[in-house]
């Protein structure tokens, strides 16, 4: 697939690869413990603190590096969960048909009508936010629309000969799902995964920005939350080194997923492929 070498998807992959590396190596490359009080409060960037320090003297460079971990863990975890649920419900509904299909699609309709962010805020505030609950919540909120897409595509696949013959030769649902449908649906699943991961980055950051984040983990949104609560922040030069790096880190991560999605679209979208 030559589209894999499109400049956009390459740029996206490079961005995300770099971020993954930063996240994985954070304990090694971060100069300070992200929770430690490593210096004076609101120190300007210097050779000792590359991005300065925040309101209580934590090293912001180390915190931004560690933030990549939280962001990518939640994004990949939530996207994985959402896709697993979507495949399970969407494909099974299409294969079973009848009442099971109708019930599943009504459930999807109800889920789709729920306003995602307010619900996320309410539940996260009540359950308490940590990495695991965030992954579960974002995954559960994001699966329904992908389930619907996968159901539609499965319905068309079911009409093709190979699924019918596999069933005819006695292949069970699980076999057909693993052996025939998931490979045929792989491009859609991958596209869905990338899209959900991108929105999950925004959701995690947004919740942390509102103060709903894992108290033990470092989150880019959490950095912005603390900055916002700092009195008079906008009148000190600290705004530039406290707010900008974390904000751009979120933006770059989202951009990475967007580039990947847009660059891969010709390869992933079955309608494009049919047209060409």
């Amino acid at each position, binding site marked *: 697939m030559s589209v894999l070498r499109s400049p956009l998807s390459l740029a996206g992959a490079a961005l995300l690869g770099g971020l993954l590396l930063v996240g994985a190596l954070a304990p090694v490359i971060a100069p300070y413990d992200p929770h430690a009080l490593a210096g004076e409060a609101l120190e300007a960037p210097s050779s000792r603190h590359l991005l300065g320090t925040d309101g209580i003297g934590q090293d912001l460079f180390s915190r931004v590096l560690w933030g990549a971990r939280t962001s990518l863990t939640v994004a990949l975890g939530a996207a994985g969960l959402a896709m697993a649920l979507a495949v399970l419900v969407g494909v099974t509904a299409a294969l079973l048909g009848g009442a099971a299909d109708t019930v599943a699609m009504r459930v999807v309709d*109800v889920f789709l009508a729920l*306003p995602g962010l307010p619900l996320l805020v309410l*539940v996260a505030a009540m359950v308490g936010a940590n990495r695991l609950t965030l992954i579960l919540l974002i995954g559960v909120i994001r699966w329904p629309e992908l389930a619907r897409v996968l159901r539609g595509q499965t319905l068309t696949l079911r009409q093709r000969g190979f699924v019918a013959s596999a069933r005819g030769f006695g292949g069970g649902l699980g076999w057909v799902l693993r052996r025939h449908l998931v490979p045929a649906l792989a491009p859609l699943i991958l596209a869905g995964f990338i899209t959900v991961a991108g929105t999950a980055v925004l959701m995690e950051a*947004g919740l942390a920005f*509102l103060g709903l984040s894992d108290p033990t983990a470092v989150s880019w949104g959490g950095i*912005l939350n603390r900055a916002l609560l700092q009195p008079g922040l906008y009148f000190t030069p600290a705004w530039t080194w406290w707010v900008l790096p974390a904000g751009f880190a979120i*933006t770059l991560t989202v951009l990475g997923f967007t580039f990947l999605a847009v660059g891969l679209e010709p390869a992933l979208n079955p309608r494009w492929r049919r047209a060409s």
Partner: protein
Amino acid sequence: MTPVGGVVDEPATSPEQGARDPDRPARSRLGGARLAAYLLTVYVLVTINFFLPRALPGDPIDALLDPSQPAYLQNERLRAEITAYYGLDRPIGVQYVDYLADLARGDLGTSIRYNVPVADLLAERLPWTLLLVGAGLTAAVIVGLSAGVHSGWRRGGRDDRRLLALFLGVSNFPAFFLASIALFVFAVQLGWVPLAGARTPFASGQSWFTQVADVAHHLALPAAVMAVSVAADYFLVMRAGMVGELGADHLLGGRVKGLRERRLKYRYAARNALLPAVSLVAARVGTAVSGLTIFIETVFAYPGIGRLVFDAVSFRDYPVLQACFLVLALLTVTANLGADLAYTRLDPRVRA
């Protein structure tokens, strides 16, 4: 892209799916089916709002009492009294009916932090949110659609490439980051607009005109940030629609007739390309209400429902948080219903 049996901005599904959907409502009954689905959604939301706190670990009393207080665990009698006072010792079915009855009377409970009825707080905040969303989306429609028409008409040109890069770039910024940058640049550095709030405090007794100008002055920057955040989507859909019209026969016919460029651009191409854009405009009202207001109002300390959500999260003011959820959710699903109905009215193929 017919909005059959689902939300308007449904992701690209294969055409086969729509045609084969067995439980698709007949077209004439579409409005009725939408309304029924809407009422069901409202009922689900109201019910979620009741059962969620009861289903989660810990009971509502835990939320009321600070765990660090000595009374929290030690005084079992006080705890039982409080539980009885709030009716939490009664069967859950009775509680549920009471809750629905209270809701019908507009009783949303009492704020823990302010100790006033939540309904009063909301009544005070809601107009500001509606004003912000109204102004922001109006600006987004004007900017997004006109830029989209311009960009699509000159596809591949210099303006098109610049606008595309601009909107695509902006759409990747989280709204709260965009808002913080805007605040820093336009309010702090340039001093064009006030830093926070919706009006100048303690400025009563001024003329009517001064007050309106004051509100507009405070509104400008939050509304602009909301407009920019939403406009990117409008731009992309409008541009795609225009590009789709470029090779159309009626456009060629118009050209052969010697019509002027402006007429071709707006009357012939843009008018046809408007339909998908209109449905997106309506569908984004819900997104703007439910998501953007929380972030933008928080950064600008704008006294709407969104800022109330942030404050309620910080103070663990659960009755307020629940009421805000209910109001934002109802606004969102109502906006989505409006989007569906508008689309049905506008597209003769769906209405037929």
